[in-house]
């Protein structure tokens, strides 16, 4: 527990937040996000280009001496919060956070390519995977070629390379496989703003990017960092839902008055505000602890992952309800957030999973051990 971790934005973070938000305000129109459900993914391409080229965020977590921006987990949290606010369909979490964290454990030139945005990567794992044990095994043949099938992979469409865990007698290696050499089957996903794909790898060549000795810890850190920072995206999703609902209920009139004046609704929104405040503090604390490699980072990450996923879903469900009929419509963007929130709740481990991890960390076991 570190009382010194700042839970507010620093000046630099405020500026970063403003830059990301203004770009998204201009170029991430909800109507264009919605087009992803009809298979039109052009927004992803243009937006990701802006984020990598104009804002230089692809390599945010990569140190400057390896070609990146040298940002911290706190910066990534700020970016994710803003991306969550817009349900932005970009592979920042999958490539710049998870893949980059895994890759940093090795010394491959992929790190520098990812940093500049010339290459985008994704972990070859179901988006729901939370532990290294849940990562699928690929089979390596005598020629070193890899085969296997992995379902529900996030970030694969945008990825130039996929990072696969390959178990060898020496330990788990991380291999990079060119996406062009595998079969990518699109999945009709609950959240089409982060669409999933089933991947078939059939005797594809891979190259080792993290060696056997470092593979497992690298994957572990990648998943844990992803889960801890996904909490910030969830906070962004919840914040949009609350803000938008409050704004709507201040103008919507029924029974001759603004419905936001009905106490039953005021109280629900107040409760949501209270929960969002807690969620955003928990997410910032987790990011702050990661940024300083604080010993509390694992507990902080588990708390954030366990709490924020639930709150984002609640906020999105309340948003649909309190918008009434319009909340159920395809045109109105609130369903984008409901789908993102629900998928995020399952992504990188469910809240129940993170609670059980926490139980071990804070000595609250089930049973006698």
């Amino acid at each position: 527990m570190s009382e010194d971790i700042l839970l507010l934005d620093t000046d630099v973070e405020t500026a970063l937040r403003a830059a990301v938000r203004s770009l998204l305000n201009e170029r991430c129109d909800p109507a264009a996000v919605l087009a992803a459900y009809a298979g039109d993914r052009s927004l992803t391409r243009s937006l990701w280009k802006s984020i990598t080229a104009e804002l230089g965020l692809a390599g945010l977590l990569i140190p400057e001496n390896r070609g990146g921006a040298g940002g911290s987990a706190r910066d990534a949290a700020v970016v994710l919060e803003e991306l969550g606010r817009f349900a932005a369909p970009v592979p920042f979490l999958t490539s710049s956070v998870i893949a980059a964290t895994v890759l940093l454990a090795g010394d491959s030139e992929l790190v520098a390519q990812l940093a500049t945005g010339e290459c985008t990567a994704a972990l070859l794992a179901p988006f729901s995977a939370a532990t290294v044990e849940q990562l699928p095994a690929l089979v390596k043949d005598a020629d070193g070629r890899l085969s296997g099938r992995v379902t529900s992979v996030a970030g694969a469409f945008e990825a130039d390379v996929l990072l696969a865990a390959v178990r060898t007698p020496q330990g788990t290696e991380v291999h990079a496989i060119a996406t062009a050499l595998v079969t990518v089957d699109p999945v009709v996903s609950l959240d089409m703003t982060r669409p999933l794909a089933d991947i078939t790898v059939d005797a594809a060549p891979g190259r080792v990017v993290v060696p056997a000795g470092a593979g497992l810890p690298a994957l572990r850190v990648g998943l844990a960092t992803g889960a801890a920072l996904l909490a910030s995206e969830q906070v962004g999703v919840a914040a949009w839902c609350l803000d938008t609902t409050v704004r709507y209920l201040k103008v919507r009139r029924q029974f001759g008055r603004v419905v936001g004046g009905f106490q039953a609704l005021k109280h629900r929104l107040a409760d949501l505000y209270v929960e969002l405040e807690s969620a955003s503090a928990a997410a910032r604390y987790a990011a702050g602890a990661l940024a300083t490699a604080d010993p509390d980072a694992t507990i902080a990450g588990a708390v954030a992952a366990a709490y924020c996923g639930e709150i984002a879903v609640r906020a999105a469900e309340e948003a649909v309800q309190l918008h009434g009929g319009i909340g159920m419509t395809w045109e109105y963007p609130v369903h984008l957030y409901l789908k993102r929130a629900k998928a995020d709740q399952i992504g990188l481990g469910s809240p129940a999973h993170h609670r059980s991890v926490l139980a071990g960390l804070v000595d609250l076991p089930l049973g006698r051990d």
Partner: protein
Amino acid sequence: MTNPEAVREDLRGRVAALLTDHDPATTDPVTFHRARFDAGLAWVYYPEGVGGLGLDRELQPFVDTLFEEAGAPGNNPELNGIGLGMAAPTILAYGTPEQRQRYLRPLWAGEEIWCQLFSEPGAGSDLAAVSTRAVRDGDDWIVNGQKVWTSVAHKAQRAILVARTDPDRPKHAGLSYFICDMTAPGVDVRPLRQLTGEAEFNEVFLTDVRIPDANRLGQEGAGWRVATTTLNNERVSIGGRPVPRESGILGAVTRTWRGHPEHHTPELHDRLLRLWVEAEAARLAATRLRQRVAGGQPGPETSALKLSFARINQQLSGFELELLGEDGLRYEDWTMVRPDRVDFAGRDAGYRYLRAKGNSIEGGTSEIMRNIVAERVLGLPGEARADKDIAWKDLIR
């Protein structure tokens, strides 16, 4: 001030000097507290001369910790919570120099315990509806009325009091705010037993109690504004100090969990962890709020903290009884006593469960807190107020 580290260094020096002159091991608590007050180390964010040094509020926990680590006597914030958390900031904001001089030092030193004579049988959430009357008589006011739910009135020497001084004006405009001497003739404190069995709060009957006009805080008729300051601070005192992880009721519950593995079930386990996570997130939200208001005054966001702590305490304490199974059916003691303080940690789970129910009522109910958050933080429309512009004496009561 300039460099934060230099400020801390300076404070460390002041604390060390005080500890050298007044060895906590051999100095009696009141003497120690007076000296701490005089050194400006009582509440460092108060101005110089009234117990402070005019520094940032965020430095207070730092100073408190230095004293704690040195084994200095604690100034019993549980017993004088109303004095420290509510009376003092109100006296600071509205008191004359004479009032500040007279009241703050003994308050800080724990020589004078304070209580709050606000609620009445007919005025709880609607505090501005109070009917206790104060009528001017020369340099004095003569007060008559009945107050209720008055915590620690049986221990208190002083009270903050809201009374009606002008019934012809609308309810908010006809109030004035006083400091009442609880030992004055006409003040009658009677225990009011509560659901825990004990009498932590009281009824207070005021019969022709004389209060000198010099004990009025703020202008005549401006009592509502003064009371608002008190109420804001009431909610601040709830999230004001950093608390360690797993403290308070959560600490009690986790001890019970670890001590009773035979009662564990997967369902209880998941509920425990949910509550743990919620409590930790709320604790971090309080930390963040403290960071946000480091220099200034906390706003309506503090109502959010009160809401979450009330809810979590109630859920945790109810959970603990279920966890205890057979033992949860027993209660420690129904004897009527008049305790000094609320002691969650030192009591049984049954007491915790029953007493925690008050957390969503005392200091403004959770419904009122939700109204505050909805209106003042989220900007939603206010409640209808049919009684706002009508003279108080003409209201239907």
